[in-house]
């Protein structure tokens, strides 16, 4: 096996065996599970479905009509014949979740008052209100002598289609899909760069501070070492993300009936292949750019504790890129987004937003990819030089002047 792969697989396997890997994987998995089952968890806490609402009917027959219309709700109603004061007391004693009094106004239309210990459960309030609204419509229309079928016609939503005349822009359906994918990819890239960038820098700094680096770079060239490290961590990241996606997918599959709607609104049902390919491309480019930067920064520190300090500027860049892209999701055609999509640090996120939400010319995409590739090569070149000097540089304090010192070390002068 060639030395590049020995280092890459060593980096991958030794990281895979660490507690950190297990802990972070399990934490994120727990988070995914929590999110996927969020509604049922909330339900089990709030005890929904056990709501029993007391109703005092001061009219005639309203209760019966209401009862028939709330049969499929997750709350029940019970008619009370006691006085309002007694009923209120029963609510205060938590025998009932709420009390509703029904009466009829001079036009024969229903009116209601809702009493509860607190009215923070807006879900229940609006549910009750909605049922009563339907009741009112039904009574009012009956008084006017309109058929049920005609009411349905009146209340059915208007067929309203949005079509863009500019042949370049995307249809509503496409846009919804794209937003979902863009969002997922932005999140993934953001997390990947933050987590794995840090991991690369820490790994390099660990090897440097334990002084094993000098032996390593006497066996293989620093450039080989640096890129093998970047690949090894990338493989680790892919493993982790693959686990997340698999578990997340399985989770969603098992609850498809309940969360299917959410999936659809995220555009994850029928995904456009081109967009996925763009996503993978920009993800890889983004990872490579930031990983190279992280390896370079990791090589100039002498102690592991200093890693966080030197990668702050890199973290800022990625946070700015993320914020810009979130802004860009809303206004993808703004000038800021357009300009930003050509700045290499922002390209992977902003250009992907533009590719996903706008129909932009191929040359624009190619240009930005070209700029990115050139920047990555430049960074790899400088990074490798800094790396080569950096790994031999042991200074008490670390500053960005060390980049200059590291470069001087590799000079022949």
């Amino acid at each position, binding site marked *: *096996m060639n*030395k590049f792969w*020995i*280092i890459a697989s*060593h980096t991958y396997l*030794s990281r895979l065996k660490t507690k950190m890997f297990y802990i972070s994987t399990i934490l994120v998995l727990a988070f995914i599970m929590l999110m996927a089952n969020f509604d049922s968890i909330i339900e089990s806490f709030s005890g929904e479905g056990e709501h029993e609402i007391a109703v005092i009917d001061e009219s005639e027959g309203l209760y019966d009509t209401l009862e028939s219309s709330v049969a499929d709700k997750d709350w029940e109603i019970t008619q009370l014949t006691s006085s309002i004061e007694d009923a209120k007391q029963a609510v205060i004693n938590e025998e009932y979740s709420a009390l509703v009094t029904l009466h009829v106004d001079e036009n024969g239309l229903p009116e209601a008052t809702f009493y509860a210990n607190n009215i923070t459960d807006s879900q229940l309030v609006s549910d009750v209100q909605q049922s009563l609204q339907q009741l009112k419509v039904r009574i009012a229309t009956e008084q006017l002598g309109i058929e049920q079928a005609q009411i349905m016609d009146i209340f059915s939503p208007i067929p309203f289609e949005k079509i863009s005349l500019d042949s370049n822009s995307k249809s509503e359906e496409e846009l919804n899909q794209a937003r979902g994918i863009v969002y997922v990819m932005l999140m993934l890239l953001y997390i990947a760069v933050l987590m794995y960038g840090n991991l690369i820098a820490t790994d390099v700094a660990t*090897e440097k501070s*334990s*002084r*094993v*680096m*000098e*032996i*390593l*770079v*006497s*066996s*293989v*060239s620093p450039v*080989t070492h640096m890129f093998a490290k970047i690949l090894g961590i990338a493989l680790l990241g892919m493993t982790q993300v693959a686990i997340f996606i698999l578990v997340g997918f399985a989770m969603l599959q098992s609850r498809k009936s309940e969360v299917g709607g959410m999936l659809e609104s995220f555009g994850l049902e029928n995904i456009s292949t081109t967009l996925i390919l763009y996503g993978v491309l920009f993800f890889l480019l983004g990872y490579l750019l930031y990983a190279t930067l992280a390896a370079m920064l990791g090589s100039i520190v002498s102690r592991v504790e200093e890693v966080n300090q030197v990668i702050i500027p890199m973290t800022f860049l990625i946070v700015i890129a993320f914020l810009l892209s979130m802004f860009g999701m809303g206004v993808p055609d703004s000038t800021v987004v357009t300009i930003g999509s050509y700045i290499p640090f922002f390209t992977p996120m902003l250009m992907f937003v533009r590719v996903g939400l706008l129909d932009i010319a191929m040359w624009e995409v190619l240009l930005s990819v070209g700029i990115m590739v050139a920047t990555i090569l430049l960074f790899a070149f400088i990074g490798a030089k800094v790396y*080569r000097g950096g790994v*031999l540089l042991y200074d008490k304090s670390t500053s960005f002047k060390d980049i200059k010192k590291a470069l*001087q*070390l*590799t*000079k*022949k*002068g």
Partner: protein
Amino acid sequence: MSLLLKNVTKRFGKHTAVNNLSLAIPENEMFGFLGGNGAGKTTTFRMILGLLDRSSGEITWNGEAIDYEKSNIIGYLPEERGLYPKLKVKEQIVYLARLRGMGKREAETELNKWLERFKVPEYLNQKVEELSKGNQQKIQFISAVIHKPKLLILDEPFSGLDPINVEMLKEAVIDLKNNGTSIVFSSHRMEHVEELCEHLCILQKGNPVVQGSLREIKRSFGKKNLVIHADMSLDFLKDFPGVVLYKQTSEGCVLQISSEEVSQEILTRIQGKGFIRKFDLVEPSLNDIFIEKVGAAYE
């Protein structure tokens, strides 16, 4: 001829770390590098290994430039010891050996042999951070020699070891040499260099001040040491012409004399003055040469 350094110079900005160093290190030999702190030993080693580019000059191994293609035949023990603290000895050594082109199985077999030899087979599955410093050094040494390098560079191999371990490592180094490895090593300890090396070089602030074969160096140094044990006072020898240094000892004195002829004059001078139990003309020690050439006592 194997390792050849020709007019090698290394400058860091305005500072010259190694100045115009030319060396020929014959195959199958041990070559000693001496010098104080900052003399340029480690810089020279790093240049040989290609970790640093030289400012000018040439370094060749059997006539070819040394690059990463040759890394499989080179072994290196850096001055600053470094191993992965969290890795087990086995994982660590096998990884480093594979980076020197060894197969996994082969590396494991060799590692077991070395651990047996150093009488520490129980460390195979221990983490490096759990070992004592001296034992870490044995592991580090194994990592430098496990792939049977043709050229072995040892930067201060014996520092921080107890005498028993020093002997163990010395034997290992001598065995490697006898099996055809050319060894370059630096040391603070003159007696190690004196004992192990045929050729040596003393660096001072980047300049080679003495170099050549040990015997030649001693012979051309000219001065000899004279050890006299006698019952009478030898104070008067302090001002004897030809005596460079006078050092009182409990049983007499040790003199450094400018040439061996002086010893005969001294002998006639002290004859009959008292009982002389010992009169011994000896070669100067490397330490004497070092002190004279570098101009300051070392250690």
